[in-house]
């Protein structure tokens, strides 16, 4: 259980600035998810904490001890930072057996042989791989290799793990299972985990807290899954964590209009959440309902039945939006392509418009 603090971290590769002035505090015993689109610097954060790259600015502290400080010229080498790391490609050494892979961190710390064996077995138990200690990595499946990687990371440090896309290379079913196992493991051992992924759903399922990185490497939002879903900090977060529609809107004469090819009034008052006269309305497909009384008229362009729900693409003048309806409720009704419908908008959000 360890506290991890990053302060003012800047990393650039040549001209390209990957992380700018990043500060982050991770409480002990938490799983924190670092989520963002590819190329936003997620892995760079992990590599900086591990000591594989040297930031140009900032401080990194683990458990109150300075691991890196540009100002004080401290840069502890990776082998002395005592972090368990799980890599996306497993990074299991192919020339060593499962046992030797897991025992390696203990050997490097100079533990006597008789202490190594019980610890390796303990780690193998944690990941349900006891029967495989004599296997070579090439004899294991992807999921098994990833378990070995986790066991090795645990013997390296059961206090603080960094997992960089640990399940991306596994198939969907196994991913689900591994997520559950990682969660159980963490709760049992109280390990602090930094979990890096581009998959926001996995992060929400697993993590206590999620850090969403914007494409420019800055932090877009930090919060629990609920906070992020209920109160996305900005348009990027809203767009990143789920399917979304964006419609430009404008206020005119005390009414709210969709600002499309023609102005379509959709509210007879100024929405409370909106500021200014121009904005971008963001809404999830599930939050749009068909309402024959609505002044907003549209045509169904495409209707797809997904089993538990209908997925519609609906055409407004100059724009197509996505609408989803539950298909299994009593009053579920299906609409066919070409049909004219009225749309009502619930739970809409307002973001800044670029041309405002």
């Amino acid at each position, binding site marked *: 259980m360890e506290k991890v603090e990053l302060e003012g971290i800047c990393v650039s590769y040549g001209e390209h600035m990957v992380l700018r002035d990043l500060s982050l505090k991770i409480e002990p015993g938490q799983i924190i998810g670092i989520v963002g689109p590819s190329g936003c610097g997620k892995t760079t954060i992990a590599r900086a904490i591990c000591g594989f790259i040297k930031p140009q600015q900032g401080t990194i502290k683990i458990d109150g001890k300075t691991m890196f400080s540009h100002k004080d010229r*401290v*840069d502890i080498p990776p082998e002395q930072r005592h972090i368990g790391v799980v890599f996306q490609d497993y990074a299991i*050494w192919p020339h060593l057996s499962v046992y030797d892979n897991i025992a*390696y961190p203990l050997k*490097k710390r100079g533990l006597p042989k008789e202490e190594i064996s019980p610890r390796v077995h303990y780690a193998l138990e944690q990941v349900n791989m006891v029967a495989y200690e004599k296997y070579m990595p090439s004899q294991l499946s992807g999921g098994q290799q990833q378990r070995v990687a986790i066991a*090795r990371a645990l013997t390296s440090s059961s206090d603080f793990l960094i997992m960089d896309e640990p399940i991306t290379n596994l198939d969907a079913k196994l991913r689900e299972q591994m997520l559950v196992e990682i969660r159980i493991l963490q709760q049992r051992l109280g390990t602090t985990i930094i979990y890096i992924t581009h998959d926001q759903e996995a992060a929400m399922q697993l993590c206590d807290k999620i850090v969403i990185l914007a494409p420019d490497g800055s932090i877009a939002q930090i919060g629990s899954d609920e906070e992020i879903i209920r109160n996305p900090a900005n348009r990027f977060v809203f767009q990143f964590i789920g399917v979304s529609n964006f419609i430009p809107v404008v206020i005119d004469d005390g009414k709210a209009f969709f600002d499309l090819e023609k102005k379509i009034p959709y509210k007879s008052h100024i929405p409370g959440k909106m500021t200014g006269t121009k904005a971008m309305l963001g809404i999830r497909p599930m939050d749009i309902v068909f309402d024959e009384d609505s002044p907003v008229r549209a045509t169904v362009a495409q209707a797809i039945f997904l089993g538990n729900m209908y997925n519609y693409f609906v055409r407004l003048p100059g724009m197509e939006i996505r609408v989803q309806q539950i298909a299994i409720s009593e009053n579920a009704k299906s609409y066919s392509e070409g049909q004219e419908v009225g749309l009502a908008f619930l739970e809409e959000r307002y973001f800044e418009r670029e041309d405002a």
Partner: protein
Amino acid sequence: MFSRAINRDLAHLEGKGGFSLDRLMIILCYVALITVVILPVFMILYYAFWDGTKIDIAMFKQVIFQKSNIRSMWNTLVIGVFSTALATAVGVFFAWLLGRSDIPMKGLMKFLFSIPFMIPPFLAAMSWDMMFSGRGGYVNKALMSLFNLTKAPFNINSVAGIIVIEVVYYFPFVYMQVVSALERMDPTLEESARIAGASQLYVIRRITLPLTIPAISSGMLLVLITSLSNYGIPAMLGYSQSIFTLPTMIVELMNRAGGSFEGIRQSAALSIVLVFIVSIALLVQRRLLTHGRYDIIKGKSMRPMLIKLRGAKYPLLAFSLLFLSLIVVAPIVMIILVSFVKAYGLPFLAKNLTLANFRRIFVGNIMVRDSVKNSLFLAFSAASFCLLLGTMLAYVIYKVKPKGGTALEMMAVLPYSLPGTVMAIGCILAWSGAFFGITLYNTIWIILVAYIARYLSYVLKSSSAALQQVHGSLEEAARSCGASHMQTLKDVTLPLIKPAMISGFFLVFLPCMRELTTSILLYGPKSRTLGVAIYQLRINGQIAPAAALSVVTITLIIICNNIVKAITRDKKRG
């Protein structure tokens, strides 16, 4: 679980301005390459254009326009062009036959093709000389008595003879390139032409051939470059008739000079001419390798449509087997036979056979015993050094990736494209007291330095190919597990590239065992190599003992070759 004991010194060691392992390796690489590669090359330029006080181009001009030198340039070009053209024709023919036709016994033929690579070119030339020498070659004599001729029907000691032997020796280069291209070519390209109604010959001419042109031309240039810088074959066959090529002329000038400044300068100047000619060929090769690739040749293997030879099948098979056994088996048989004959020239009858040649070279001859010892020592130490330096270089270039990485790589592969003769001249100039008063000339060490420079790129290639397979995360995982940089190299990186390192070692060891081109210029009274010993025995007319020593050499090479195969096969199975 573990206390975070932090070693301040170590932290600073890895920090800015510190002296890290990476930096140490980079510096070592630069020092080694500058010493081994750059100094000799620089010295050649220096001697060719510097007369001791000022830049001097007059001497260079004089060397270029000297009649005997022009003659040797002409010979080099003629031999290069003709042997390339013929070797290409033969190579493409066999590649097509084995890659695209249904000729039987392909396995046997493929094995025969690999044999010329095992026998050093000068040994092959020597054996051909024993058969077809104008003065008493065994085959010539047999033909003369058979047909009652008064003159030898063949004279291998001629430009034409040199060309023929180079063709025989080099056509497998073209064959290998083309056959692999044929194997990787999408067979549907040919099939669709047949379906569209094209005849067999039309398909070969308009589809198959154009698609393999990149492979053909790269094999062709390989032959051209090797031929231009080859020393062994023209030396063995041309020397007695005073037929010189540039490499043999350089050696001749060096020998005639007897250490005089002017003579050394002349061979340096001629070396530059040779390098110039070879680099034109290299530039063309580089252009061809980067441009003009057809994407239809894919990396994966496909089963090609085999062309039925029908009636031509068995005649072609007979011809191929005859040709291959003549050019591959005959020279070996000849050398073995001569090694057991009492005196060269005697017919191979039971009463003329003896083991005395073997006894003579091993018991009575210190020079020969020394040469076996020297060659083993040189091959072993050059291979070890190359292994160390080449692997370190590969690590620096592909893992550390310093700013000057490309420069390092270029320096390391430079000697590979320089003719061995030129490299040897450079070594003489650099290590005869020019730098820090170090004189290695006439010792075994100068040969070692030259071998390391020449063969370094072999290890660099095999090790870097393996290193590029070792993903960075494997090393980082070890660091995070508490291993220092050095321990990571020892525990993870090196074990993972071990098979490539072992084969890299033998890639250097084998050619060193049979080396002649550089050693002939660098040997001293006590540092003869196997190649030099054979060459000198042969030149001094001790042909039968030379053959005996050749048999010993070939045996050694075959043993080493099999060791490599055994090791690499074990690795694959494990």
